[in-house]
């Protein structure tokens, strides 16, 4: 007698062939373009579409392209400053929301998360108008020439940091704070010695999140960049306007690898802090 196939329990969706096929299809649909892009970045050809063999020439070219390198440097600089300021604002606003009750708290909370949901294009246009109205000078020396972009990036990054910080704060035992106070610690000492160590994983995760958000951003940057400041994603876009060269593939691959790597670290730290919070 043929042994009966074990029957799938009602919620064991992963054991149903139809659903497996569906999930597989979704994954193929999502990742084929990315994979193709990465594979063709190693193509030994001037053109992006026909495979002619493996080569690193586009990467070499990429690292020797001065314009690209400047754009890359700009992106890193913007991401760096935007991350620092986002962290400070994010931690402060996260702790504020958790620690205090004040009038219109709900409104402030909503306003804080607005940049997360507002369409980027609207935000970009709004910023463009805003900076124009302020008559923000565009003839500063580097890195002050990047100021408008940095300010814009801070605006949409720090609410994400706030969210991460607040999530971590829910696992904070208030008796630790009282315990420290009982032992003679001042408010600042409590913040420094008790709260910040508890928040460290969220601070690291928030920083990586802010960094990748800034590094990736195209739309808002496009609207807020002064004429001669160009960032990496914007540069890639401008290269595409002439033709899709394998160099663009190489640049994109580097950007993808960098973001995936940083996001993976952020997620890893977050999942670890969820375990240690118990």
């Amino acid at each position, binding site marked *: 007698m043929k042994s009966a196939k074990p029957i799938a329990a009602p919620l064991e969706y992963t054991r149903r062939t139809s659903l497996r096929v569906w999930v597989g299809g979704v994954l193929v649909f999502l990742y084929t373009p990315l994979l193709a892009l990465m594979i063709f970045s190693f193509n030994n050809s001037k053109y992006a579409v026909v495979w002619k063999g493996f080569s690193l020439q586009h990467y070499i070219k990429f690292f020797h392209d001065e314009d690209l390198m400047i754009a890359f440097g700009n992106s890193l600089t913007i991401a760096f400053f935007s991350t620092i300021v986002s962290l400070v604002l994010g931690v402060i606003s996260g702790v504020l929301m958790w620690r205090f009750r004040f009038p219109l708290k709900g409104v402030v909370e909503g306003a804080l998360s607005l940049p997360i949901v507002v369409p980027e294009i609207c935000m970009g246009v709004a910023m463009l108008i805003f900076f124009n109205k302020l008559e923000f000078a565009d003839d500063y020396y580097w890195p002050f020439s990047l100021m408008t972009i940095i300010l814009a990036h801070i605006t949409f990054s720090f609410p994400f940091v706030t969210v991460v910080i607040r999530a971590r704060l829910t696992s904070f*035992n208030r*008796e*630790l704070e*009282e*315990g*420290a*106070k*009982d*032992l*003679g*610690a*001042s408010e600042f*000492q409590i913040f420094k*010695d*008790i709260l910040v*160590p*508890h928040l460290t994983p969220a601070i690291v995760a928030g920083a990586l999140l802010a960094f990748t958000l800034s590094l990736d951003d195209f739309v808002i940057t496009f609207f807020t960049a002064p004429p001669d400041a160009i960032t990496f994603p914007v540069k890639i876009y401008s290269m595409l306007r002439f033709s899709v060269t394998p160099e663009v593939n190489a640049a994109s691959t580097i950007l993808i690898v960098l973001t995936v790597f940083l996001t993976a670290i952020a997620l890893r730290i977050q999942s670890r802090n969820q375990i*240690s919070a118990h």
Partner: protein
Amino acid sequence: MTILQKPFIQFRNITKKYGAIKAVDSVTLDIYEQEFFCLLGPSGCGKTTLMRMLAGFEVPTEGQILLDGMDVSNIPPNKRPINMVFQSYAVFPHMTVFDNVAYGLKVTGAAKADIHTKVTEALSLVQLSGFEDRKPDQMSGGQRQRVALARALVKKPKVLLLDEPLSALDAKLRDQMRLELVKLQEQVGITFIMVTHDQDEALSMASRIAVINKGVVAQISTPRDLYEQPSSRFVADFIGSVNVFEGKLHIDEPSHAAVVTPDMPGPIYMDHGVTGPEDGQVWAAIRPEKIMIEKAAETNTKAPDAPEGHNTATGTIQAIAYLGDLSLYEVRLDSGKIIKVTRPNLGRWDAQDLTWDDKVSMTWEACSPVVLLS
């Protein structure tokens, strides 16, 4: 118990309101130096609020708290010479045991060498020498509690507060910690104030207990007096278990008294006077272990030291709980009232002696009943 000192901690007409709700209602309470004092009451009675006001985490709505004669109402918790062991212990998870204990000294700027000596001393006091470099997550609940104790004691506070100190420990460890905490208190000579809802804990550890009910002090006494001379039905019932009979004060002489109750065939007689309302409603309380129970005899059982027909009753066993050291019997009296009686199992086979539906007779000594006026 003779305490002739002046009070060390005084709660004077302390009231704490949360909106319209009075969590603590005009409490006046004196605690003396070197006492092991306990605030006992059901959850939500205001005992924790009282303690937190003493620690400084809550501010009284009205009244004053004096510590050693000084009003502490306006001193923030980090400036009070009072330390607390929290219910969750609140041991800092990211610090080693040494750093946890040293924290209270560091934040107030003590010298490094001094910190080392004091921390080592405190850790040996709670028997945690050698655990300096451990992290809290590598320790058991009992050990974390010791860290919390050492961390508080190292500050040499005038008062140590313990918030439900044993509630998170398992039964065996709890029994052991009870004795250890009492010993520790004797050793360091600091006033301990403990909050608990567990009457056994309070009776076995405290030198004096304040029973709190609905924000008001129901009674302050030594454990023995609280058990043997409760002042109200609430206290009698909250501390241990008790049989209460509603009745009227029939005789009330300085040397003896008797309560007549419809639940009993004869009056409940006691060998002490009660200054109660003549013919007014009172309650007579008798603890289950003070009632002697035996199989009903042919002749009527007579109580040893009461007039004929007093302090005796008959009934039928309705339920039995065998507890090992004791057996608990639920007896339905002939009047229909159900009472509890316990009997120690002195001999190995004693428990087999009485069984369901047995007719039993009960007596008690004249010193056993207590009259409650409220």
